[in-house]
């Protein structure tokens, strides 16, 4: 029973952390986006509030709270209020299924007068066996918030925006789902953790019975699936309703799309959903095609482990020496070197690697937004159905043939 409560507590903490992470990425990304666009367009961007304008978004958040809570006439109250809440759910649920760092084994240790059993800690909201299908299913729920918002606002531009957005989302979901079949053919598993472990080694495969090995490259999916990676990334842009696919918000035609009638915190919630979606997109991209938290031969687990062992062993005595004050016996364990601390430090290093990769892709999102012009709606649908879907099919067939030839003996 005690371990149950411990587990529930740990899980609850993880949930809160992951959600806070998703919510906190929004002000950061908005700041990066505004500064980045200013940089690209040779302007200044927000630079008055705080250092480099960093607290601009805090000021914005405070402003949002004190905005009027507006409900247009003839709107459907329940659905109108439910739509922004619904916008938060898909991104949060999907992000929690992605492993953020390597799982660590915590051995038995004693703290605060009681013994905490051996425990396997995963840096992941939940280890779900069929991760890919789960993430696809959860993120396909995103269409509801668009449709609900557009319909409940009782505004014809909102309705058009919602229909456009949802038609676009579902069209690109096909290319998205199909480009993942190549990854599944290669790795034969739905589990994110296993996919990452399979990528965490030097690039090596057998080709007509001959072992080809490129020791200096990691075994990343992108080297096997370049076309799939491109299709996946482009489809993800459309799923997030980002430029060049941001037709639902084409200002000149549709005012502001499905959230025309929303203001203040409720509109902010749509933004949290959108940026959360970007975060999920980048994390998925990293997990499928760029090795997740691992860096293959460039940064092996042994290296990091040795490094963190050295850090822990050299720092712990220093702290014990420096803090030459009598502290209670029960806290003594905190400052002693142990295998657990080495493991935790290693996990954090890999988490840093993961975050670094994700940040690169997030910057790509911003960069593309200020580089490419917007598509016309018919071009957008043509691209989705007539270009990306056939290419994704070709990628699937090609992968199947190559896998068949390579693995058959």
């Amino acid at each position, binding site marked *: 029973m005690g371990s149950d409560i411990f587990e529930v507590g740990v899980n609850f903490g993880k949930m809160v952390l992951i959600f806070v992470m998703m919510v906190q990425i929004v002000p950061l990304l908005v700041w990066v986006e505004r500064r980045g666009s200013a940089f690209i367009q040779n302007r200044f961007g927000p630079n008055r509030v705080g250092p480099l304008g960093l607290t601009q978004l805090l000021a914005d958040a405070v402003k949002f709270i004190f905005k009027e809570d507006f409900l247009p006439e003839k709107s459907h109250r329940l659905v109108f209020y439910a739509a922004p809440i619904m916008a938060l759910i898909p991104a949060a649920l999907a992000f929690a299924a992605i492993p953020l760092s390597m799982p660590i084994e915590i051995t038995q240790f004693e703290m605060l007068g009681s013994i905490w059993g051996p425990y396997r800690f995963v840096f992941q909201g939940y280890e779900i066996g069929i991760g890919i299908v789960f993430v696809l*299913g959860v993120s396909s729920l995103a269409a*509801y918030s668009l449709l609900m918002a557009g319909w409940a606002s009782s505004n014809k531009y909102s309705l058009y925006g919602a229909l456009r957005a949802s038609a676009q989302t579902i069209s690109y979901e096909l290319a998205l789902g199909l480009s993942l079949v190549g990854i599944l053919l290669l790795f034969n598993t739905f589990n994110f953790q296993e996919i990452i472990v399979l990528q965490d080694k030097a690039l090596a495969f057998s080709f007509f019975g001959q072992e080809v090995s490129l020791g200096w490259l990691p075994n990343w999916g992108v080297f096997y699936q370049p076309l799939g990676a491109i299709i996946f990334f482009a489809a993800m842009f459309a799923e997030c309703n980002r430029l060049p696919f941001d037709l639902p918000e084409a200002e000149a035609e549709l005012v502001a799309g499905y959230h025309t009638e929303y203001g203040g915190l409720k509109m902010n919630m749509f933004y949290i959903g959108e940026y959360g979606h970007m975060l999920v997109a980048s994390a998925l991209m990293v997990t499928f095609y760029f090795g997740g938290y691992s860096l293959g031969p460039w940064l092996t687990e042994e290296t990091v482990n040795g490094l963190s062992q050295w850090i822990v062993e050299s720092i712990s005595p220093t702290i014990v020496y420096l803090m030459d004050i009598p502290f209670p016996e029960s806290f003594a364990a905190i400052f002693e070197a142990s295998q657990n601390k080495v493991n935790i430090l290693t996990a954090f290093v890999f988490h840093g690697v993961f975050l670094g990769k994700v940040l690169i892709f997030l910057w790509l999102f911003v960069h593309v937004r200020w580089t490419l012009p917007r598509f016309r709606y018919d071009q957008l649908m043509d691209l989705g159905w007539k270009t990306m879907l056939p290419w994704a099919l070709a990628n699937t067939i090609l992968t199947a043939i190559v896998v068949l030839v390579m693995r058959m003996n």
Partner: protein
Amino acid sequence: MMSAIFFYILATLILVFAYKTITANNPIHCALYLAITMINLAFLFFGLNAPFIGGVQLVVYAGAVMVLFVMVLMLFDLKSEIRAFSRGLFSGLLKIASAGLIFGILSNAIFKTGDLLGLASGGPGMPDPAGTSRDLAIMLFTKYLFAFEALGLLLLLVAVGAVAVSRIKGGTHAN
């Protein structure tokens, strides 16, 4: 204990939203409630060690079919129905009674034969949740291969049929 509580929460949610689905006046509300019902059912499937089917339920039912329903309802007249239910007290009572009869027959069958099959207490064993997706795939492509190909053909026919219906005179896309 935990799992029983979990089951009862899910079951309550499913029943409440299913009830809302068949009683809400506005068809769009019906569709949204049905979507919530289906999401909860997907989680029930996850709990029943059928994770792949749960995922498919999320992708196909909640993510595609119900979105189609919501979109179609938005294309229709947006005013909610004044009378959502068919009229007639006698026929209404008859309908309720026949539904009750079906439920009685079903529950009778459940409680009479549950012990007979020897399933009520635990059952012989469960499929291993880790291996089910792969076993399911292998079974699908050996034993059920013909049905699988037939379904592919059916989907093609439905796609052609939907376009054809939209083309006929007075259809959705007729000029």
